[in-house]
């Protein structure tokens, strides 16, 4: 049995097998090495794809309740992410560039006294301006929501000095506080390090998913008009303003407010509409489960049974307490709540009738306290 001894009986066979194996190993390793560049690129691509998949699942369960499953945002609640504004697409870029070029040329032609050319350019400019106006007219639904066609990029509006990836990631990481003049709802910090529930690799997954909405130059005005909320103070798309009536004024003293409120009768129905409207967005913080401020449910009971029992409010009525809470929110913070979260500008935006309606609505919130 030749195979029995040393596997190969003859030394030259063993040397041959060993040498061939060694050469084969070298050839294979070389072959792997040559293909490494392509393989690593493919791996990165595949990994990004799977990261987007995980991000999609995380987005569905964590982000979509506020930003909506399609990422177009929710009116009064959270801004759109699937939006040309976030990605900084300028729909007017092309026409503006043409106008600018023509204006320069017109200046040159004017200096040279070439009046025919100036006339031609003026005609062209008129038609370009018409084209520009046409584009802006197409954006009407977005503009009604407060979009400004000349402020086309979220990042430049903010003066953000880094990439969109960093902007989305750091917003996820640190959250966003309530801003008095800007946005009524906070976004919690999502990173585990900042008190949230997600790991940083998960935040990157979500960021990758959000960036995957990017379309480069293929954004359409329909995409813009599909946005339900821009990252600006919520605007009621169809009027909903004070319709010309004088507003209360944020600095008006409580006594004056109460004097002016006295002859008015509040409509709780309308008050509820205002409460839940995008204009004031009270529900954003006081709605069930928002967890930012005292819930609307049982407000009147708490005012009557707890707040007015406080000697501090000895000469207050329930209405006066509520009026002060809305117009001068930081005069007093109910125990367990932070002062300074609620915007102080409702007085500048609200008429006396609207205040009366909201107070009337809050008086219907007399559920017993658990």
């Amino acid at each position, binding site marked *: 049995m030749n195979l029995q001894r040393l596997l190969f009986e003859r030394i030259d066979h063993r*040397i041959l097998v060993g040498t061939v194996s060694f050469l084969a190993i070298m050839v294979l*390793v070389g072959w792997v090495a040559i293909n*490494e560049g392509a393989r690593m690129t493919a791996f990165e691509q595949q990994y*990004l*794809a799977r990261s*987007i998949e*995980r991000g999609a699942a995380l987005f569905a369960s964590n982000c979509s309740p506020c930003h909506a499953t*399609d990422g177009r945002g929710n009116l009064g609640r959270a801004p759109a992410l699937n939006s040309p504004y976030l990605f900084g697409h300028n729909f007017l870029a092309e026409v503006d560039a043409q106008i600018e070029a023509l204006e320069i040329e017109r200046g040159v032609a004017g200096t040279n006294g070439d009046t025919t050319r100036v006339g031609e350019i003026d005609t062209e400019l008129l038609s370009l301006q018409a084209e520009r106006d046409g584009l802006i007219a197409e954006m009407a639904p977005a503009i009604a929501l407060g979009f400004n066609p000349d402020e086309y990029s979220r990042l430049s509006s903010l003066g953000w000095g880094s990439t969109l990836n960093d902007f989305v990631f750091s917003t996820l990481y640190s959250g966003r506080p309530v801003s008095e003049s800007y946005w009524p709802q906070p976004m919690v910090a999502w990173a585990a390090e900042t008190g949230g529930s997600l790991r940083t690799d998960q935040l990157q997954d979500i960021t990758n998913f959000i960036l995957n909405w990017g379309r480069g130059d293929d954004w359409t005005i329909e995409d813009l008009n599909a946005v339900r909320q821009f990252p600006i103070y919520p605007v009621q798309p169809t009027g909903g303003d004070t319709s010309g009536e004088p507003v209360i004024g944020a600095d008006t003293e409580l006594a004056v407010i109460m004097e002016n409120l006295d002859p008015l009768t509040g409509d709780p129905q309308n008050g509820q509409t205002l409460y839940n409207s995008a204009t004031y967005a009270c529900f954003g913080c006081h709605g069930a489960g928002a967890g930012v401020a005292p819930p609307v449910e049982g407000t009147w009971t708490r005012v009557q049974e707890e707040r007015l029992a406080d000697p501090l409010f000895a000469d207050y009525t329930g209405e006066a307490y509520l009026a002060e809470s809305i117009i001068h929110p930081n005069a007093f913070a109910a125990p367990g709540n932070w002062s300074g979260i609620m915007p102080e500008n409702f007085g500048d935006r609200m008429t006396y009738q609207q205040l009366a309606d909201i107070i009337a609505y809050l008086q219907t919130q007399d559920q017993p306290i658990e």
Partner: protein
Amino acid sequence: MSVLPFPSFLDDVKEKGLKRAALEGVNEVTERITSGMNVQDIREALRGEAASRKPNPRLQPHADGFWLHMRPSYFHRSVTGIYPTFRLGWLSTYFVFFETITGILLMVWYTPSPEIAYGNMLAIMSEVPLGQFMRDLHRLGAEAMVIIVFLHMLRTFFTGSYKKPRQFTWFTGFILLFCTMFLSFSGYLLPWDQLALWAVTIGISMIEAAPPEIVGTNLNLLLRGGPDIGANGLLRWYLLHVLAVPALLFIFTGVHYYKVIIHGHSLPPKQENIGEDTAKRVPLDKRVYFIPDVLTSEIMWIAVTTLILVVLCVWFFHAPLEAHADNQATPLGTTAPWYFLWLQGGLKLGDKIFWGIIFPTLVMVFLAVMPYLDVTKSRRFAHRRFAFTVCFLLLSALVAMSYMGLAEFGVKTSADSEIIHAMLMEPAHNHMGVLRPIPYEQLTPGQFTTEQFAHEGADQAEAVAAFNTMLQESGDAELFRQYMEVNQHLPLPSINFIPVPADAPELAAGLQELGHEIAGVPNELPNATGTIIVTQVQEGLKRVDVVIVWDEVLIENGNPVLDAEGNPVMVLDEEGNPVRRINGQYMYIHENSQYFPAPGA
């Protein structure tokens, strides 16, 4: 007169000419490096000729050199064949070095911290040239080493080589087996993926059962570094993996080999008289010299073994990397590594303390002291029927218990969850959901139902239409709407099922598979329908929902309760109607995700 003020190579050149001086210089250097063999001696040895000068220069490296002083200069002819050693001991030694080298290379790019370990793995895979290859070799080598060391132990048992005077050699070998398995297992944790976290969590929770409670609790805390495995735990396992256990392994490899040399390689049992040990007395005519015969054989064996590993890693094997470790999400069907499946199987038999602690300890103690218990003199197969019987019984138990350790055995998950899992699961343990490898283009957005294939020969479009009608009439459509809402589904225009398009055969196959799975459990899922709903979420990203609707049945201990006729007992509502249940899960599929079916699946 010397050219330089001291004797030098130049003098030689002057005296003998450049060529001859150079050759002589090379010859001298070679002889120094090999501690005794010059170029001519090596040439003769490799040609298989006898040594031409005396004393035999091939013995010189054993006497003067460091590396070969620990190798015997000759072996008995009977132990140099495939039988009786199968070269398993040599290969085990080789793997110690193989794993050390590949491991050190990987260490360069690895940091043992939960925040970055997984990112390191991704970097090794995507930014380090040959990084994935090194990782594959290290991982495959680890699995191969476990097998080879285990086979080496079995071989030693069968040839009776553990008997006097080699009892202690066996004992050190047992420690090496233990070290090998622990090294392989501790390496599991380092990538910090789901596989890592849960395999090790299972392992440690077994140790937690060690009585008395104070011991188990503290051992558990020591190994986890806290209530959960985190930064501390990872660092500890990393240090065990790269420092403590390898140190133990190297020391015992030294002791083990020293003992092997001291006692000599035991001859095949039938060549010796019973009770005799002639390994150290090798007659002149039976001697096979290390140089060149055994040396070339050994190098050939490791070259071939390495080639096999390389071929496997190039075409057939890639070290798995699952999703990032997540303490909150327990994957369905987590198992221990295959060489610990027997332990997991044992745990399914009953008491955690007995099967998780006492039983494995008994097995280990028995293995460790076996040579001191089995003191019979004969090494011949025919005289060791009892020992062989015990061995085969243990091996059978090992195989049976390992089978029982698989997730398929004895773990009851509700039938609907199990089917959905089989459809969608992320790649793990060389499996993945049936629907994952479907080409992206074939995932046509739409709503599809297993009813399409429910009745063989029936018109498929009609079956789907009938299902739509039934949905609206029975109110199941409302269930679907609710499911969509709860699961953050993009709003669908309507609940309207359509037949699978002809250009999506793999989607159709997946749907059929779902139908088969549901039909396979009629008692758990009566009147059930499976559906697959595909929606376009973003450009290049689709969502696939698998939703099952069925009539709820009474379940006890994970099994449906059957009535006298063998039919399942239905759960009825207050009006006596069956309760409809719905369960679904979803996955997202990106066009570049490249889920491929496992080789051979």
